[in-house]
């Protein structure tokens, strides 16, 4: 039974995932390598006196998709929020260890979380467009950055919507209220909104969990396209999704309720899904728990 499940997952995996390929010339490769790389060293997170994540050490390679997987409550979203310091907004959260973005410690005193978040965008679990027009939603971030020029804004809005694969559907109705869009369109609008500040990294917290299969497919296609220009870290409960869209997979697990969650294994997605080192990873991936 277990073996058949595993082979099913593996065959699904091998059908859709291609190895990471290097595109473009040497220069482009060098430039890419420079931005959007995270290095986490012994990262721990505590809510009040309770430590919920302990000792996470991993690298997040630039211009690739890293998937965080694991059962509910294992701290995937919490770890994700460390990367743009959104945990700061929740209060009573302490983060230990070091997190470096392109070599710079993002938890240092002189780092403004507000500026960090322009470099590290986030897309949330449920679509959360602002109650304003499609155009104003996308232009929201650039306007905060002080861009007022109409032509420049127009260009950013179009470019962001194109990259989020929404442009063709909304180009005639940019003045329409964002709430008039479907759920899947709203989520792609949120992706466009996050892209408009030109982030180096895009954090996605189960971005398709509230969407239907077709919208999910569109989001996944968008992610596959986006990783050419931005680093993507995606939290997902969907094993097939992780296998389909990610280059690297990290598996987190909280083995007992009174213990903090730990990083069990991190590695190339292909290897994680075909030949994981840890038996717990294999058990989770083949659907034996979680």
């Amino acid at each position, binding site marked *: 039974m277990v073996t058949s499940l595993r082979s099913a997952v593996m065959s699904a995996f091998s059908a859709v995932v291609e190895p990471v390929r290097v595109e473009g010339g040497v220069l482009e490769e060098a430039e890419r390598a420079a931005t959007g790389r995270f290095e986490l060293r012994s990262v721990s997170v505590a809510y009040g006196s309770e430590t919920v994540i302990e000792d996470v050490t991993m690298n997040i390679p630039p211009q690739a998709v890293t998937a965080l997987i694991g059962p509910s409550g294992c701290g995937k979203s919490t770890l994700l929020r460390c990367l*743009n310091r*959104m945990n700061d*907004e929740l209060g009573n959260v302490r983060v230990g260890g070091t997190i470096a973005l392109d070599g710079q410690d993002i938890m240092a005193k002189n780092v403004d979380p*507000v*500026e*960090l*978040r*322009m470099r590290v*965008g*986030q897309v*949330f679990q*449920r679509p*959360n*467009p*602002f*109650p*304003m027009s499609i155009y104003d939603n996308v232009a*929201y*971030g650039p306007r*905060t*950055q002080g861009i007022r020029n109409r032509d420049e804004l127009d260009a950013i809005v179009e470019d962001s919507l194109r990259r989020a694969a929404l442009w063709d559907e909304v180009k005639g109705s940019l003045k329409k209220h964002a709430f008039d869009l479907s759920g899947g369109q709203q989520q792609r609008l*949120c992706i466009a*909104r*996050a892209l408009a*500040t030109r982030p180096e990294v895009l954090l996605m917290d189960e971005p398709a969990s509230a969407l239907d299969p077709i919208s999910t497919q569109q989001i996944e296609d968008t992610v596959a396209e986006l990783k050419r220009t931005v680093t993507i870290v995606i939290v997902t409960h969907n094993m097939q999704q992780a296998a389909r869209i990610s280059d690297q997979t990290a598996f987190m697990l909280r083995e007992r309720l009174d213990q903090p969650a730990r990083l069990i294994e991190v590695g190339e997605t292909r290897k994680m899904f075909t030949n994981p080192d840890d038996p717990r990873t294999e058990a989770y991936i083949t659907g034996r728990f979680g």
Partner: protein
Amino acid sequence: MTNLTDLSHRRSVGRTAIRRAAEAVATAIIRAAGWTAIVVLAAIALFLAWNSLRALDEVGIASILTGTSWYPTSDPGKFGAAPLVLGSLLVTVVALVVCVPVGLAAAVFLSEFAPRRFNEVSKAVIEFMAAVPSVVYGLVGVALVVPSVKSAFGLDSGLTALSGGIVLGIMALPTVVSISEDALHAVPSSLRHASLALGNTRWQTTYKVTIPAASSGIFAAVMLGVGRAIGETMAVLMLTGNAAVMPKTVLESVRTMTGTIAAEMGEVVQGGLHYSVLFVVGLILFVVTFAINLAADVVLERQRKRWGA
């Protein structure tokens, strides 16, 4: 065995009947209470209209609303209520200027920035502000606001529309603060997070997303505050000087509609023309406050639907 089952079955049937009866009685009582409120409101409107009939017939609504002289005791009496309407309007505008910025700022602070413990204390204080009798506000106004206004503007008397409006604005604060705060709270936190994640500060998030999203609720809060200010009687009677003349600025003495009714009702002949005119003034007040409350309700309901709260 069969007997036992039968018995228990019958008992449960009896219990169901009792429960149904209790349910019916409870429903009837609640329904009656609800209808009583509506009937009383309708009765007030009818009573006002009935007692206004004589004045509406002999003076006419147009000349009451547009007449600028209010000499109800001269012979023949002059019943131009325009100074009173204008007086109420001036006092209300001043109250708005005081309570909207302060109330909105307080609501934003409490909802978006204040630490939780501070919030609990300030909630209690604000509720207490609403419970203080208006005559006490009047006393504080006479002792503090009236002399301050007098010396600040070099006036002969500090009993002005400005003094009354300032105190009314403070009295309307609890309404404005608590309803605006509710509206801000109703804005989903996912919107705040989205804005913060886009590299906005908390303050930018507040004024660019949260306040616009709560704008209809804030509007309703202001309307209810206006309703409170227009209807207030005792404090304005003590603070505005009560001269029933057409005011040109807020630094003059005014008399409001409410103040006029309260001051003159005790001295009129029951069923007389003056008596009836005072009822017309009451009717105007009733219509205005009813319309304001209705508008606020409609707007609040729209906000509730929008956020599904």
